[in-house]
């Protein structure tokens, strides 16, 4: 792939990701509740876009750090559909969860060495993100560590997750879906 084509694909992928995320945000407030089918399709598009983005970046400027963690991520399914997350999590203490998950995530921060210094800690970032459902700039590529599927950045809003089983799809997906660029 030539450099310019890779870049075009790259830009296209980022744009599609941005559009997808704004759609996910919008679907939270849509009447009739979250549509599972639509959310699934959105997440599939996002996964495609993310994969293509990463592979086009690789062909642009191969960096060893990216390709290795890519594989475990790819073999798993879309990270966007954590609807049962509330169920197992609600059984645990919230602070406990946060500790566990940050421990397991330490190694994940090694992906993109060039951007590591820009990574914020999960707790800080989640506080910033929380409550800003309509903040537009969030969908721009964020300089955060990519999460393994199943991981949560934080476990703060457990109460709301427990109650809103239907909405949890979007609530949690906002945290999980954004990969590191």
């Amino acid at each position, binding site marked *: 792939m030539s450099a310019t084509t890779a870049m075009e694909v790259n830009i296209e992928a980022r744009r599609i990701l941005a559009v997808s995320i704004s759609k996910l945000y919008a679907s939270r407030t849509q*009447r009739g509740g979250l549509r599972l089918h639509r959310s699934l*399709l959105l997440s599939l598009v996002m996964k495609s876009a993310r994969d293509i983005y990463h592979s086009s970046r690789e062909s642009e400027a191969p960096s060893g750090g990216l390709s290795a963690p890519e594989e475990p991520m790819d073999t798993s399914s879309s990270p966007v*559909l954590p609807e049962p997350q509330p169920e197992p999590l609600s059984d645990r203490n919230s602070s406990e969860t946060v500790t566990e998950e940050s421990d397991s995530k330490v190694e994940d921060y090694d992906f993109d060495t060039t951007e590591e210094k820009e990574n914020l800690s999960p707790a800080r970032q989640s506080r910033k993100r929380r409550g800003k459902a309509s903040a537009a700039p969030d969908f721009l590529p964020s300089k955060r560590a990519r999460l393994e599927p199943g991981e949560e950045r934080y476990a703060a809003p457990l109460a709301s997750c427990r109650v809103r089983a239907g909405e949890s799809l979007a609530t949690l997906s906002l945290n999980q879906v954004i990969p590191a660029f």
Partner: protein
Amino acid sequence: MGEDTDATLTLNHHGFLPDHNYVTEADIISTVEFNHTGELLATGDKGGRVVIFQREPESKSEPFSQGEYNVYSTFQSHEPEFDYLKSLEIEEKINKIRWLPQQNAAHFLLSTNDKTIKLWKVSERDKRPEGYNLKDEEGRIKDVSTVTSLQVPVLKPMDLMVEVSPRRVFANAHTYHINSISVNSDYETYMSADDLRINLWHLDITDRSFNIVDIKPANMEDLTEVITAAEFHPLHCNLFVYSSSKGTLRLCDMREAALCDKHSKLFEEPEDPSARSFFSEIISSVSDVKFSHSGRYLLTRDYLTAKVWDLNMESKPLETYQVHDYLRSKLCSLYENDCIFDKFECAWNGSDSVIMTGAYNNFFRMFDRNTKRDVTLEASRESSKPRAVLKPRRVCAAGGKRRKDDISVDSLDFTKKILHTAWHPNENIIAIAATNNLYIFQDKLNSEMH
């Protein structure tokens, strides 16, 4: 195919202001269905209302009014509800209507929104008893002392009244949004399908249903596909089919097991790797599946194509029809404006020789399976004066040779989509829902008066 199609009737049954491009959202038609004889046509809308049309009997004395559909009854089927536990509003939009075969003078239909299915009885009353002893004409109780003789009340004719009453409410069985209902050929049971589960009901029992398909994964993060449509086989009461968002169809036999998670047949076309794009998954999601009247074939619709499958061949469809392939290069913009998520339905004609489906710009397409000819027609007020002949339309792809009256892809109106169409079970009469307008077209080719 290629015969002239007369537009005999344009029915504007909801408030559409001709001078403004303004449509009340509640008036948008969300489902259209003929009954088994074609005498009745039901439509459901986003506001939860059902309107039933009845075909006027043909009369030799008034040849021009033969076979027209007029409003028979209107009723509010579903109301908006609120699920307090999940803090979710439940839309009143009617997703599907299915008629039961007629067994007595009354008609029965099932209507469903996202969560609740209702059985409605539609009956006529054209007589009323008169001559009560204890009540007078207005229904007031008479003074007993004024009654000097007894009379037997007699039935006197009255103006026809159509009464609609809810006979059953089938609720609380679906966690996800109901997308289909289908009446079994045994006329005793029916199924309802949501994104992940299919339930079997008995028409007389509302407090219990049997789960016959459950594709919910133990961990929702492993979810890769959802159920998009389901239908019973028209003749074999043990068979049904359901389609998925991955473009697969599964034929299930209820005799095999109580839970039909294991399919009897899996219909899947291998993906063309060269056509891979960001949106491959979305456009391969099947939006509608219909058995042919014979029960031999299946018709499916995905975003760009309609496919006919032979029940005996699982490896690939028998026929593939391009509905609007010119959109293939525009998928990104269609994704942005949400059109790529539109769910088009499809229909067979009575003899299973022609299939029909809708598109954008109020266009709808018909494909003749035998002659391989196809036609694009438009449902619009301008082109459909009563008894006018519909003119075939053409969309020219960008850069293609353009003929007069062709529409270019870029000038298509994507807000005018025909998602719901229905074909009369026996005759060449079609019902087309264009946003909030219902169009009924009849083919008068074989009529004597033509």
